[in-house]
């Protein structure tokens, strides 16, 4: 997994609430057995018209936001299905961080397993960053995971909370399967206990 420590980048505003995973990547693009190359389908319906041409009015199609690596989004971002194709598509497109007032649980977990930092902030802070993001390519946002700080385009610093385990894995790019496998002894002991207490399970 890609590490995440510090990022200074253009932030694209996406002030839509309940952006669902079908919006992030429609189901017809899930017919793949790979996790790469999904960036081209990111926000497909919002980005492209019926003929496959870019919609000029969609934020990520605007020149100022072509290099955006941060999204500032409306409440409840990532709701809906469990498809990890959503963070795969974001990551492949080049988005490394999303800031919102809330995220759906499964999407939240999936993102951290793919080197994407999701930052949950109070609505008034999201509104402030949204306003900053709307100013285009000259206003960048800096995210410092270690310090747990977001610096807006005007230099305002906002602190954020994050689960310490997720932070540790993201800062170090750790594969948690390897970490769990080190607990094989405990897993085996649990299974032995279960055989006695709940043999049907």
């Amino acid at each position, binding site marked *: 997994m890609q590490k995440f420590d510090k990022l200074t980048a253009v932030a694209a505003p996406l002030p839509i609430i309940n952006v669902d995973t079908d*919006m992030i990547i429609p189901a017809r693009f899930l017919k793949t057995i790979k996790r790469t190359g999904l960036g081209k389908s990111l926000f497909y319906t919002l980005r492209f018209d019926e003929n496959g041409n870019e919609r000029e009015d969609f934020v990520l199609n605007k020149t100022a936001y072509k290099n955006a690596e941060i999204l500032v989004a409306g409440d409840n971002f990532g709701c809906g299905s469990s498809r990890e194709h959503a963070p795969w598509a974001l990551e492949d497109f080049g988005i490394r961080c999303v800031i919102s007032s809330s995220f759906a649980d499964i999407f939240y977990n999936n993102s951290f397993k793919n080197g994407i930092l999701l930052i949950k902030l109070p609505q008034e802070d999201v509104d402030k960053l949204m306003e900053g993001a709307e100013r285009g390519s000259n206003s960048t946002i800096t995210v410092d995971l270690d310090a747990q700080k977001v610096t807006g385009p005007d230099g305002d610093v906002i602190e954020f909370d994050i689960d310490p385990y997720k932070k540790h894995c993201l800062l170090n790019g750790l594969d948690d399967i390897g970490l769990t496998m080190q607990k094989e002894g405990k897993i085996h002991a649990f299974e032995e206990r279960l055989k006695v207490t709940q043999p049907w399970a």
Partner: protein
Amino acid sequence: MNGPTTLYDKIWESHLVDARDDGTCLLYIDRHLVHEVTSPQAFEGLRNTKRSVRRPDLTLAVADHNVPTSDRSIGIEDEESRIQIETLDQNCADFGVELYDMHDIRQGICHVIGPEQGFTLPGTTMVCGDSHTATHGAFGCLAFGIGTSEVEHVLATQTMIQTKAKNMRVTVEGELPVGVTAKDMILAIIGEIGTAGGTGCVVEFAGEAVRSLSVEGRMTMCNMTIEAGARAGLIAPDEKTFEYLKGRPKSPKGFTWEASVECWKTLKTDNDASFDIEVTLQGGDIIPQVTWGTSPEDVLPITERVPHPADETDPNRRNKMERSLEYMGLEPGLPLKEIRIDRMFIGSCTNSRIEDLRAAAQVADGRKVADHVSAMVVPGSGLVKEQAEQEGLDKVFIEAGFDWREPGCSMCLGMNADKLEPGERSASTSNRNFEGRQGPGGRTHLLSPAMAAAAAIKGYLTDVRDLGVD
């Protein structure tokens, strides 16, 4: 844990393998359902790291999202769908996982076949790379939808890393009126608490209206817990649950069955346990529901009208409402009963079980689908289809002009050939009305199976109670 605890607390505690000081826990997983869309990259990960499936005996795979619901003897025309299903076949063979392929009578939607086979059991933990895994909570099974990295983690270790969720309880008191179903109840709940109302929570459903539901009705409710943003839904098991599971192929047998039932009887929230969030609804107030927008929370009783964005005070919500109405091609103020539909879909992990088909068939019996409507019925599994045919439901549907199809996820998400054309409007028993969910540009109204059948017959969204069916 000291003091009174909730059902969720009990299952959580009994599955803890390890707990770190920071709250990160390792939870043992008793059952893992695998399907073709969210598993190929997980198996690829195992191969790349030379890992194996730790407990193939606790893992069950089925092809559901991509399978055609038309004649299967000709195979799958769409190359990408075919490759995804062939990849599942190969992965299951290579890693020793039991698979119901698309020619197996037991094949069906993963959340239908789990309970049907007795793979889903009370007091266990279950995961699947699909958000509607919440369905299995109807059995008092703690069931989570997970992403592909977590699928790989569970395949390799039979555990998952989680922090404990909050406890939420939704109580529906009293009785449901005639013509009001589990689907109406869960839609009304989502309308009440919102699509993020359960975020960070495990929701236990309680109250007389919930207890009165059949096991299949409870599955419909728990299935849509994810549409309220919750990690899982739970209903305490009872005699109905045990009766449903008894004798299923993978249910415990003989002496073990007796012992398991004794244990399952203890699976309930203590009387004085406290919840972080409590919500109460009156069952008697619920009217058949339909959605008008592009989120399951955009829901109203069928007797209402399309809402006015001007009445919404929150600017973000007003913007979303305007966007939804534009997408749905609806004018504010239009009575919901005047919305004309083009298509009807009965199916999905929410409503494709035998009771759903019976309810729809009761409405369809002796009637005809409106001339301008194309209606399809997709049973949840091969066994549901077989039972429906034994009961003659297929004939009722066919005579009324419904298309009777093979089992799978079908037009719930349009990964196979079943999808809406741009601008087409559907009455659907599925679970999501997101933009493009049933096909690019397609417009979805969610409702119960009886309401869907009524809409197909009238050609408009309809109050099933007006048809005089109980």
